């Protein structure tokens, strides 16, 4: 057990949450981060979907890494990712229909998310399954928590709700408070993401860009 969570492995799991974050440091997966964060719920589901898909595609690729012919390795990686994404999309349609409608094409577009291909090519092709699994979970969660932060801010300021529950009291509206419609548009997501990255770099001065 102690070996499973050795110092190196803990590092693999936690580095992507902060110092090696796929969105904040590597600036990958931005497109979907902007598109699905108008509300908190789709942001959470999207984050979890990407985490599950990254983790399991990492494991699968890592298990078969020694058998993959070098010339078609990218294609094999794509096939594995595409299969997992299709499964996740079918599961969402069957058990979380409303969310799958909200996420629309972006579930399918997880296939093209650079985080996945990046982790497969850079990590899973060279490491054992367990380490790859941790790397996938770490990177998925690193992606997810940024989405959740942006989704929460956008839903709160844009619609006055969180997960559909009203947060801003009616009294505030009566006193003249207005929801910021800009927050529901992707442009504000980009600006918010910029602010998150800026704050993160200001706090962690040692990170080299």
């Amino acid at each position, binding site marked *: 057990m102690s070996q499973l969570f050795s110092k190196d492995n803990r590092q693999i799991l936690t580095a992507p949450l902060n110092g090696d974050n796929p969105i904040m440091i590597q600036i990958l997966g931005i497109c979907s981060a902007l598109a699905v964060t108008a509300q908190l719920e789709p942001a959470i589901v999207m984050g979890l979907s990407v985490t599950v898909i990254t983790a399991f595609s990492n494991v699968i690729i890592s298990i078969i890494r020694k058998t993959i012919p070098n010339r078609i390795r990218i294609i094999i990686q794509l096939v594995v990712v595409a*299969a997992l994404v299709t499964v996740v999309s079918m*599961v969402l*349609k069957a058990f979380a229909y409303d969310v799958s409608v909200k996420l629309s094409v972006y579930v399918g577009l997880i296939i093209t998310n650079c985080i996945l291909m990046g982790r497969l090519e850079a990590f899973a092709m060279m490491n054992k399954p367990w380490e790859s699994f941790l790397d996938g979970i770490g990177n998925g969660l690193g992606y997810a928590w940024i989405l959740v932060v942006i989704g929460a801010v956008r839903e709160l300021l844009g619609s006055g709700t969180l997960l559909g529950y009203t947060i801003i009291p009616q009294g505030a509206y009566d006193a003249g408070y207005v929801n910021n419609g800009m927050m529901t548009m992707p442009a504000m997501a980009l600006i918010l993401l910029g602010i998150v990255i800026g704050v993160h770099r200001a706090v962690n001065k040692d990170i080299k860009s």
Partner: protein
Amino acid sequence: MKLNTNSNIYTIIYACVVVVIVAFLLAFVSSALKAPSEANERIDQQKQILASLNLKPEKAQVESQYKQVVVADPIVDTLGNVVSESGGFKVKRKDIGKPQLPVYVCQINGETKYVLPMVGKGLWGTIWGYLALNDDCETVYGAYFSHESETAGLGALIAEADFQSEFKGKKIHDAEGNYLSVVKFGSKQEHPEVQCDGISGATLTTNGVNAMISDYLKMYKNFLNKKKQNL
């Protein structure tokens, strides 16, 4: 024996095996999840039809309430003839109006309502709606609109109750032949009987709504006229 993973034959066989495995896996998952996902789509469509009748049941009650309210779903053609006594619900959204026109005949508190489905083009993608008419075939009882990808906060507002409730009590056309339409928000309504307030900043989406309503009311015209004569 160490396999040469770079040989051509190995590569081709490897690719074939992977594809076959993935194909079987996906086919299996797809057939295993077919029933619940089709049920979700069905419930979603029923929910939208009920929404046009100003009914908003919880998800669990949608199917039972739909059964109660909708008594028939015939398909008519542009001449107003009934093509099929039932099956309107199964007409796919993209096929509505070409040339099948489903009508949902509903009973609410003893009154007959007709729900007409319609499909059109918004600014970015498909929009669709359901228009519920009273049994005089002229007065709007309720309306529901939704969209695929209209701009959030602008065109997407057509899916909100605030916009849809504007349609209640309007006529589908007036004596001068003007069809039910949406006009610029706040501008003077020259034909208040048939005009609703639009959404600021969503002119192109509401133009799409106007085109959709007039296109489909023209197609349903003969059917509605026949119903009127039988009153």
